[in-house]
């Protein structure tokens, strides 16, 4: 190979290498730009999450405070209820009536609240239940008849 031929081959090789280098540079530049953009996006997202976390933390603190205040209020009301019962017992005692102990039975309807007439009439004629109910509540039933 002559010197001219070697020069031409070298020149061609350099040209190819230059083109390859330029191509690689372009690729690297593109990748750098993409990574930078992605990094910026991640940074923005992280900042947003930090803000949200701070917001939730604040809300949780408020909720905890409200819960504590409600618990305190319940305790206060319970205490007030007991004292009201005691106060009622005192009032009843002061008018000469023995205070009645509060019991689960207080939830049951009083004798006056039961409509004996309606119950009696609702029982089938000729049934043992009707006969016995009348015998047991005769006075109240007769009283309610007219």
């Amino acid at each position, binding site marked *: 190979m002559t010197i001219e031929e070697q020069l031409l081959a070298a020149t061609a090789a350099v040209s190819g290498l230059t083109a390859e280098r330029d191509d690689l540079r372009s690729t690297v530049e593109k990748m750098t730009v993409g990574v930078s953009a992605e990094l910026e996006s991640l940074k923005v997202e992280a900042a947003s999450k930090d803000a949200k976390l701070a917001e939730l933390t604040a809300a949780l603190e408020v909720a905890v405070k409200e819960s504590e205040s409600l618990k305190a209020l319940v305790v206060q009301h319970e205490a007030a209820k007991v004292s009201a019962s005691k106060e009622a017992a005192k009032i009843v005692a002061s008018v000469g009536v023995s205070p009645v102990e509060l019991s689960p039975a207080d939830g049951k309807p009083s004798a006056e609240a039961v409509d004996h007439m309606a119950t*009696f009439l609702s029982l089938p004629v000729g049934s043992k239940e009707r006969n016995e109910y009348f015998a047991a509540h005769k006075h109240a039933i*007769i009283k*309610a*008849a*007219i």
Partner: protein
Amino acid sequence: MANSIANAPAILAESVIASLKGKLPALRAFSSVFTAAESGAGKTVQVPLIGTSTATEFSTGGYLTQDDATITAANVTLKHFKVSSRFSPLDVKMYGAQFLSNAFVPTAANALAEKCLAEIGALITNANYSSNVDTGAALTYAEVVTAKGVLDAAKAAEPRAFILNPTYANGLLSDATIIGNSVLGAGILTSGQIGTLAGAAVYQWNSLPTNAENLAGFACGADAIAVASALPMSEIPGFEVANAVDADTGLGVQVLMGQEQSGYYNVTATLLFGAAVGRATSLHRLKTA
């Protein structure tokens, strides 16, 4: 206080039946069909008589052969009885239902009971039940046992009863055999109730008729007399009607209540009742002469 009488008949009927039941305990001693079904005067009720059954050995005839030939029925014709009272609206308004109950219930129960018992008493004659004995002025325990023997011989059905006028009942109360008994005596002395004697319930019937045959009491099996009761069909415009039925016996009574044109409240207790001769040999009459 409610201003309506709509509920008054229901409570009066229930009160009357409770009282009437107590006045007719002897009805348990008879074969009976007591029903709250609507019926009418003159209608008949077929009352099966309680009999003494005999069992037989199962054979080729299977279950179709009738072993109990003694069970028969008596047809009882119902009569319509009623007792009516009138009350001032002012009194009812002023005193309420308690006044009605107090004034009406005992009267009605007594009147109806007497009518029902009279139906039964009229049957106890020589023509219907020929078996009898002269037990004299007072009844003794020995005579009770003899009467039981008569029922035994006649195979009178259980349960059995002695139904006695006051003289005879008091005669038994004075019988040393009864009151001298260390078990029976104390209870009878305090309560005056003899209860059961010689396997039969003893009932005192104050208005037992003599029937012009010196009748003072009788011993009977449950098949001797058939009784039946029912309730009338009463629909009177403007009147409230209510029924009450004793769950133990089925005996019923009906009470009607309404305001008449005069302004008075008319309160009526009514029932259908009848009695008929059952098995003639299951009743033994006790006579004073």
